[in-house]
């Protein structure tokens, strides 16, 4: 169980601030979802936490800054599922998930029996063990997405970052993937930070939403507090109806403008 604290995070691309002074604390086992229109800075926040873009400000896991850490040490704390993962066609599912063990294997060494058993366990847990010797090219979009999550789990990192994890999936596979992450964080106490476009799903699965606009944090809180028609109209330039179910689920429905 790990706590994540981001303070005054700023990401600058040239003269433009992609993220400006973003701060958030995510409790152990909590799921924070970043939402906002394209270019709001969601991916930049995730990428800066994992060290893929330069940024200023504090990034701490369990009170310890991860800025000075070698990529190997950082990868033991934070696992990252990118928006468009690269899945080499001619790599097998087992080989792909085994990459998740890289942070535990010396540069010039090979994986141990323990590493292989961790991968076998993750594949079994995600019901992927029957695919272990299959080539990635022969697998469906849903199976590939589960494999990417499996690779992240093989890292055994307490913090999981997901960048648009369901964008390429149909509604059924979206639900499966998010249920999977939700189940894993409940069982293993993973702290999850995700970026998502589907506002209903974002509100349904996360504990808290953070709405970004042009790099600034403009609203955060429970789904019912953030997903308001007037807020979404202001920052997404969209007309929506928001419906709240008896169990608290917030549903965002776009309203057709013409005719």
């Amino acid at each position, binding site marked *: 169980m790990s706590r994540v604290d981001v303070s005054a995070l700023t990401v600058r691309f040239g003269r433009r601030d992609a993220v400006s002074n973003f701060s958030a604390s995510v409790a152990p086992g909590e799921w924070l979802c970043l939402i906002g229109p394209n270019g709001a800075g969601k991916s930049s926040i995730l990428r800066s936490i994992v060290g893929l873009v330069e940024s200023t400000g504090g990034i701490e896991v369990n009170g310890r800054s991860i800025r000075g850490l070698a990529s190997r040490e950082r990868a033991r704390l934070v696992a990252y599922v990118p928006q468009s993962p690269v899945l080499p066609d001619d790599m097998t599912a087992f080989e792909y998930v085994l990459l998740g063990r890289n*942070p535990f294997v010396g540069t010039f060494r090979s994986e141990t029996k323990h590493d292989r058993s961790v991968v076998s366990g993750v594949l079994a847990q995600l019901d992927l063990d029957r695919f272990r010797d299959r080539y990635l090219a022969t697998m469906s979009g849903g199976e590939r997405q589960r494999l990417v999550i499996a690779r992240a789990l093989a890292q055994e990192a307490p913090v999981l970052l997901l960048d648009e994890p369901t964008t390429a999936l149909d509604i059924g596979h979206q639900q499966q993937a998010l249920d999977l992450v939700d189940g894993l964080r409940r069982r293993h106490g993973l702290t999850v930070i995700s970026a998502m476009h589907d506002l209903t799903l974002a509100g349904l699965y996360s504990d808290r939403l953070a709405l970004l606009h042009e790099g600034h944090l403009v609203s955060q809180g429970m789904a019912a507090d953030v997903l308001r028609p007037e807020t979404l109209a202001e920052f997404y330039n969209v007309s929506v109806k928001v419906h709240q179910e008896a169990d608290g689920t917030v549903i965002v429905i776009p309203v057709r403008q013409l005719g």
Partner: protein
Amino acid sequence: MTPTLRRPRSLVISVAVGALVVAVVVGVIAGTSGIAPGRVLYEVLDRLTPGRLRSGLNLRERNIVWELRMPRVVLAGMVGAMLSLAGASFQGVFRNPLVDPYLLGAAAGAGLGATVAIAYMKTLRNSWPVDPIVALGFAGAVLAVIATYFVGAAGGTRTSTSLVLAGVAVTSFATALQTYLQRQDDDTRREVFSWILGRLNTATWGDVRLVAPYIVFSSAILLLYRRQLDVLRVGEDEADALGARVASTRVWVVAAATLGTAAAVSVSGLISFVGIIVPHTVRLLGGSSYRRVLPLSLLVGAAFLILTDTFARTAAGGDNIPIGVVTAFFGAPFFIILMRTRSVVR
């Protein structure tokens, strides 16, 4: 896509080792001097187990075996192994299956260095401890890649794409200079062309001793990085997020592959296609993990160049066909077939 068949690692390595042994045997016994192959084998076994066998070869024949064929086979093996290993490593570090060891300007730099030596240093050949063509070819290859490395960072960041583009620029520049210099006279032009088409026909034990340390050192470094090259298959960003040391892997792999390639081309001239077709062939044989591709490229590359060089020196009677012509002759059709095979070019 047609999935590559997965065969046990030990079987594939054994087959590759067997192919290399066969290639060495064929390379040593085949020739145009009329020595019976069986007696050549006895001669080699006699040297390995002194006094037990008698080949019956006279001094001239023994010299042909030990001073002409053997260093040529060993040098062809080392050059083939190095070019294939460097090609596979470049393909891994640049995540591009179509690149070869000459990508970053090593060939053009070596060509320019060799041309300078041929055009201006003919008189120094006997006074230098090392043939100036070899020395300047080596220096040209290394300097060209160093130039590529610095030009590739001119835009601020050094990425795989910027390095490849810088390699294109440096290659064009070095080739332009070389073309200008080789216009000097007919002799220079002829000798440069002969060098460009590859030359193993002048191989000596001195050449072997000269390049062996570089090739052994470079190969060892590249083989050490084979697992890191597998991590890089998911792209530099994801590899970084997985804790890989992306920048240092790229530097070491490029440096080792360049050093080895420079050593190989300095003694052999430009031998084309080996660095592309061998790694792709071994991917078809043993899968695409670099843990297999690199050691297999080394073994199969050595076997391939020994066999093509044996063909080059025996197919036209006593005339040596330039080795680069033979590798291109077999390599080009293979490459076309490869381009049509979706699974490996993707």
